[in-house]
């Protein structure tokens, strides 16, 4: 059994219904996303079919199934941000970050994800880069931020 799962076992009994979500959340916290191997292990541990777990996990926005880039961009696509005048065009962003919505750039530096609402509707458009939230972002400002991240040497 995988170490991470082994550590969880005492806290998540097999017969408890909500063990599943809790375990998935911890995996995501540790790895940034749900890896296939770990879902398999959870399935085995909880005696559930892999596909059922994957199906359930895809129901929630919070779970990811691919690795994230060094800089993970979340763009609010909620109604309010979407309508705010200087709204950010996701296609532009895809071009600038060299990745599709929901994907990761080849150099693994950027990943992009549009999310439904981040709860700051009055300050839209809202963009979150890793843990930092930027409010009232104009396209120009976003441009500047991206350029500076690109220029940053590792």
């Amino acid at each position, binding site marked *: 059994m995988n170490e991470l799962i082994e550590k969880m076992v005492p806290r998540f009994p097999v017969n408890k219904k909500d063990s599943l979500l809790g375990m998935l959340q911890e995996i995501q916290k540790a790895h940034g996303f749900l890896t296939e191997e770990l879902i398999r292990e959870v399935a085995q541990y909880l005696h559930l079919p892999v596909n*059922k777990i994957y*199906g359930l996990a895809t129901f929630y926005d919070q779970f990811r199934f691919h690795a994230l880039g060094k800089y993970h961009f979340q763009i609010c696509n909620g109604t309010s941000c979407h309508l705010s005048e200087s709204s950010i065009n996701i296609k532009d962003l895809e071009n600038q970050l060299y990745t599709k919505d929901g994907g990761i750039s080849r150099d693994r530096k950027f990943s992009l994800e549009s999310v439904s609402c981040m709860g700051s509707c009055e300050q839209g458009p809202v963009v979150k880069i890793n843990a930092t939230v930027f409010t009232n972002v104009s396209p120009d400002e976003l441009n500047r931020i991206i350029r500076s991240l690109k220029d940053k040497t590792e």
Partner: protein
Amino acid sequence: MQFDIEINGEQVTAKKGETIKNVLDRIGIKVPTLCNMNGFTPTGSCRLCVVEVDGLQGLVPSCSHQVEEWMKIKTHSPRVLKARKTIVELLLARHPDECLYCNRNKNCELQSLAEELDIRERKHQTKRLSIQIDRACSSIERDPAKCILCGRCIRICDEVIGVAAIDIMGRGSDSRIGTSYNKGLNVSSCVKCGQCIMVCPTAALSERSNIQTVLDALHNPELFPVIQFSPTVPASIAEDFNLKTSKDILNLFRAALKKMGFRQIFDTSMAADLTIMEEAAEFIDRWNKQSVLPMFTSCCPSWVRYAEEEKRKLLPNLSSTRSPQQMMGRVVKNYITSSAGQKPSSVFVVSVMPCTSKKHEAEGDVMKDNNTRYVDAVLTTRELVRLIRLMGIDFSCLEPEPNDTAFSLRSSAGKLFGVSGGHLEGLIRTIHYMMTGQEINPIKINDLRGLKTKKETHIKIGKQVLKVMAVSGLANVKSVLDEIESGRKDVHIVEVMTCPFGCINGGGQRIGSDEKSLKSRMKAIYDVDEEEMIKVAHKNPIITDLYDKFLGHPNSDQNKDLLHQVPITEKTV
């Protein structure tokens, strides 16, 4: 408790606890549904069966709503009809306009509903789902664009087959049927049984078609096309072409195949006889050593796949005897056609099976050596029907073709393979003979017959008693396997078939088969057993001849490679 309710202005008797739909079915009022399935608890998810009940604000789904004494119900009021129409219009909003080219054309529940509800124009248009067709699996093809998310496939795969290979992925308008990590069905827990195809109302699920390959072979002058058919096929073809299931049907069927250009025709039941001989000898060997019991049959490739993936500990218990399809292919290419002066490389063996899983079996490594495939293409019963139509065969003008190849000779035991319990019955007849030198009496084993998914009985053989079991519907097998894994010792042979009731209900059969057709297919098989002179595999003259001339005796070392397969120890995917 009984009481009267009013339906469409008429008094009708209803029972407490039944659903509105139960009552409607009984009095012959048809309401449409796209999610309901016989024998499953209703989900009420498609909403098409809604009816209007006086005093209730919203329309209620009749499949899940129970009757109550005060009810006055309208099943086809303007409001109800409008709701149903809107639902179908919305389903059509993202459904491709492809009916003309679709393999379910004229046999699609969505299409018929649109027609029944008099939908004559596209009311809504939304963005189509851009998900690729999943063609990774050699048996099953998935086209999510045609899916209406009724959920039937998920339920049958989970509740009847017990593997839960597919599920709803995502949420809201992004929902789709898929596998984990969007991988192909081939690397999921799918066992290729095709039961999901049988319940899908549209063409979102279908078999991988081999019609073109077979047509090409029929028209290739360098090839010598031959065909083998599984025991249940002629009766199913008769249903499709509205022919009476009589004795002649087999000969008519043969005539049709000849007309289409197949040079030789073989009844897979003959190979089933061979399977029985080998399997019986294999069992007796295990029995004498009292080792690795119970023996599981291994003729159902879906079951074999499941065991390979999930029950590796039990693999040694699976019989090593090859399935009839494999045996037939091998015997045809190795002996029969060579005596007709053909090289194995120019013989093209087609098999017709009521099964999608056999396609997968035929492509596997067990089905070839030195690049010779033993079966070159597998057609489902459905595909054969299409091919017969395509070739313009008219049954009413055919002369019944008498059985010309001796290799169609079979005992009725081989025929019994088509139904759950039948394989076991045929096997026991020969085991009895091999162990005691006498025929079993009575020859009919009634406990192993009938439309049940779990049958068991004790068989007296000389002084010994065997306990045998026939289980169908893979999900039902699980509990038996668990018992055996945790040490249950009193069972000696277990016959496993993935599809409920066996191949008569296989995933390659006509779509829309009901219990009535299952019963008549079953009856056709048992009728053959009733009338046939040779009822046991060991009396089939072809089989005894084969052993005399080529094979020696059953389960001998010399036949290990030809008629048995090495246990699968490496995980396949």
